């Protein structure tokens, strides 16, 4: 039985936690009330017309307009301030940021260059302006490269994909998984490379030929048989669509191909094609419907009795919606239907995927870091329904899986090009067949590079 002082201590902890929670809630409520008491943006704008020299009010309005995704209003106010004092480097920088967000890189460049040309501008502001200037100038080039790379170490709690119950079915008979396969936790080193090239035709429609490369490799410290490598290349023109009231709309047909190795042996290759559209239905919301087809050929383990990686055709059709909730918050929601048509009847399945993620940018704790940091939680749910039983696994029951994943990433830039990335994911598959019931927690951390 717990002693009285232990109970008191425990009670105190609960009380402290409850008090802290209440304080947080009250703080949040107070903040909400404070926001509610602020005048609307139009009312605040009218105040600046009635009191043009109320600079504090004007700067506060410009800041609010930026946060509220109204760069034009921010420009309106900031350009007035700069007209009163052409040495306002912060206001010029902020106006440049507003133009950048509108996609008006030519105007953004002008403001960032002015900030950098003034020796009186402080070092941190210059650093930020320099980072933005590079990004804006790159958007004006005909040939544009972008690179994102990450390397590091990764821990998986179930690298060997051992089923939850430790049993697998073989021709309907359960067997226990033993030996090294049951050795679950494992560390590996990994490298991820994403390279993009845009060739801008520099026409009014904004046509661009896009080339995208993705490569991934992992090297296990102990389970070398699970070393992985794959590469994928896609090519296609992104063509501007002339849709009334929808500037920036585009459609992109593409071809894609890739190859993969497992255990340092050539495993599979695939080729395919697809089309994806980009429809900005408003200044803050865009919809990207698409269709993707792949033809996969499995070379190693080609006669495997059951696998999603079987030789065959794979189709995915769906759409994602991107909603800029605030200047630093983007919500993405997506849904798709997928179908696999393997050569063997038990390799055929269909299903659906729904996922959502939130990307929140925030200021790093050190002023001299020129880029924001971001945290991106996500959840994902997929279903896979096979049409026929696999006689090698369970001759009586067709497989039905439900896949859940929840996780997130933290990307912390240290300089404009280098940073640290952390990824955490919990994934679980529920299935009517014991072979496929698995759980895995993975954590990855390592340096990042972006250009």
């Amino acid at each position, binding site marked *: 039985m717990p002693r009285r002082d232990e109970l008191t201590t425990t009670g105190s902890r609960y009380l402290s936690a409850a008090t802290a929670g209440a304080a947080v809630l009250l703080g949040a409520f107070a903040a909400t009330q404070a926001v509610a008491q602020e005048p609307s943006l139009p009312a605040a704008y009218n105040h600046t017309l009635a009191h043009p020299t109320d600079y504090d009010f*004007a700067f506060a309005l410009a800041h609010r307009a930026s946060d509220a995704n109204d760069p034009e209003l921010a420009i309106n106010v900031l350009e*007035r301030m700069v007209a009163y004092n052409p040495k306002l480097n912060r206001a010029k920088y902020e106006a440049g940021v507003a133009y950048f967000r509108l996609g008006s890189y030519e105007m953004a460049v002008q403001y960032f260059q002015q900030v950098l040309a003034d020796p009186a501008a402080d070092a941190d502001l210059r650093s930020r302006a320099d980072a933005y200037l590079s990004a804006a100038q790159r958007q004006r080039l005909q040939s544009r490269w972008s690179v994102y790379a990450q390397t590091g170490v990764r821990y998986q709690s179930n690298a060997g994909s051992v089923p939850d119950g430790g049993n697998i079915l073989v021709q309907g008979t359960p067997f226990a998984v033993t030996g090294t396969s049951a050795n679950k936790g494992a560390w590996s080193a*990994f490298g991820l490379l994403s390279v993009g090239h845009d060739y801008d035709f520099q026409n009014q429609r904004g046509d661009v030929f896009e080339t995208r490369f993705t490569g991934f490799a992992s090297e296990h410290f102990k389970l070398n048989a699970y070393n992985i490598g794959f590469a994928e290349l896609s090519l296609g023109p992104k063509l501007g669509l002339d849709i009334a009231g929808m500037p920036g709309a585009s459609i992109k047909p593409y071809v894609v191909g890739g190859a993969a190795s497992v255990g340092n042996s050539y495993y599979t290759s*695939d080729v395919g094609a697809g089309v994806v559209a980009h429809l900005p239905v408003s200044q803050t919301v865009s919809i990207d419907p698409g269709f993707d087809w792949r033809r996969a050929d499995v070379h190693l383990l080609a006669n495997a009795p059951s696998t999603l990686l079987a030789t065959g055709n794979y189709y995915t059709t769906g759409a994602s919606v991107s909603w800029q909730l605030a200047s630093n918050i983007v919500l993405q929601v997506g849904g798709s239907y997928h179908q696999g048509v393997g050569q063997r009847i038990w390799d055929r399945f269909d299903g659906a995927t729904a996922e959502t993620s939130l990307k929140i940018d925030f200021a790093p704790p050190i002023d001299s870091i020129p880029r*924001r940091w971001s945290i991106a939680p996500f959840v994902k749910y997929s279903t896979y329904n096979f049409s026929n039983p696999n006689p090698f696994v369970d001759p009586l029951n067709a497989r039905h899986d439900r896949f859940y994943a929840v996780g997130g990433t933290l990307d912390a830039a240290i300089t404009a090009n280098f940073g640290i990335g952390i990824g955490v994911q919990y994934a679980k598959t529920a299935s009517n067949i014991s072979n496929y019931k698995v759980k895995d927690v993975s954590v990855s951390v390592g340096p990042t590079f972006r250009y």
Partner: protein
Amino acid sequence: MKTQVLPRALRSSVGRYVVAVVAAAIALSSQAVAQKAGIIASANPSAVTTAPGGSMRTATVGADVVMREKLETKGEGTLQVALLDQSMFNLGSNSSVVIDEFVYNPSAGAGKLSATMTKGVMRFVGGQVSHTDGATIKTPTATIGIRGGVVTFAYDPKGNLLVVLHYGSAALNGISGTHAMLTRPGFGIIVGTNGVLGEAFLVPDSLIQQWVNKIETKLGQNGGVATPPTDAQGGRHGIGDPKLPDVALPATTFFSIVGRGDNLANGLAGSKQLNSIPPLANVVPPVQQVVRPVPNCVTSCSVLSTKP
């Protein structure tokens, strides 16, 4: 007598009504003429304005600007006019603009805005009206309709007009009967003195810099205020703090790529598991042919990252 008095009274009443109606009409008319469109937001000498029926006056910060008011700058003069709907005219040196019509319904966020520009350089920043019903800028050689938008208008010494889109869209109609659209920021079209529209082209930064310089307040000027704002004031309100957005891979894309690698490994994992089962050799084909599938896509199936 009564019959004479009544008609006289009636006539008198009618007369009074007529006078009242005429007076009201005149008053309303005057009110319409003097309808406020916005204010002078900043002014550097020499900037002048001329209200309809009024005389030319030096532009002063905070002064009302009314419909049909003429805005002019000379020498090093610049002028900003902020309209009630959040639109703004930024006039560079030696420019002339007349606000022909401005109607704004704040509750609907809609209205009508048209102006005529005859010389100089001007950057128009759109507000509520241009986002809903559109704004129109008339010139002697072309009429430009603006949706949303930020647009620069600049005359060259020969009288050609260059229209540059910074945001939104602009529909150009030349007096020659030619039409064109600007839809991509940074692109411009030259309107010849005969109203013929040229091809859209990517405007060089150097040209844009020239016009920005003409529109901006010069060092030593103060936009017409006695005490200008300071950088520190802006800093206190977070102005200048935003940093370049992060360009990390989306989380779903990252895990889609990593997960694809996991899928590949899982095939081998299934074989290893089967290898560890002694009786298996007697009941199934060679173990290396037994692969355990995992519920994930064969390709990078994240629907948030299907765009290659």
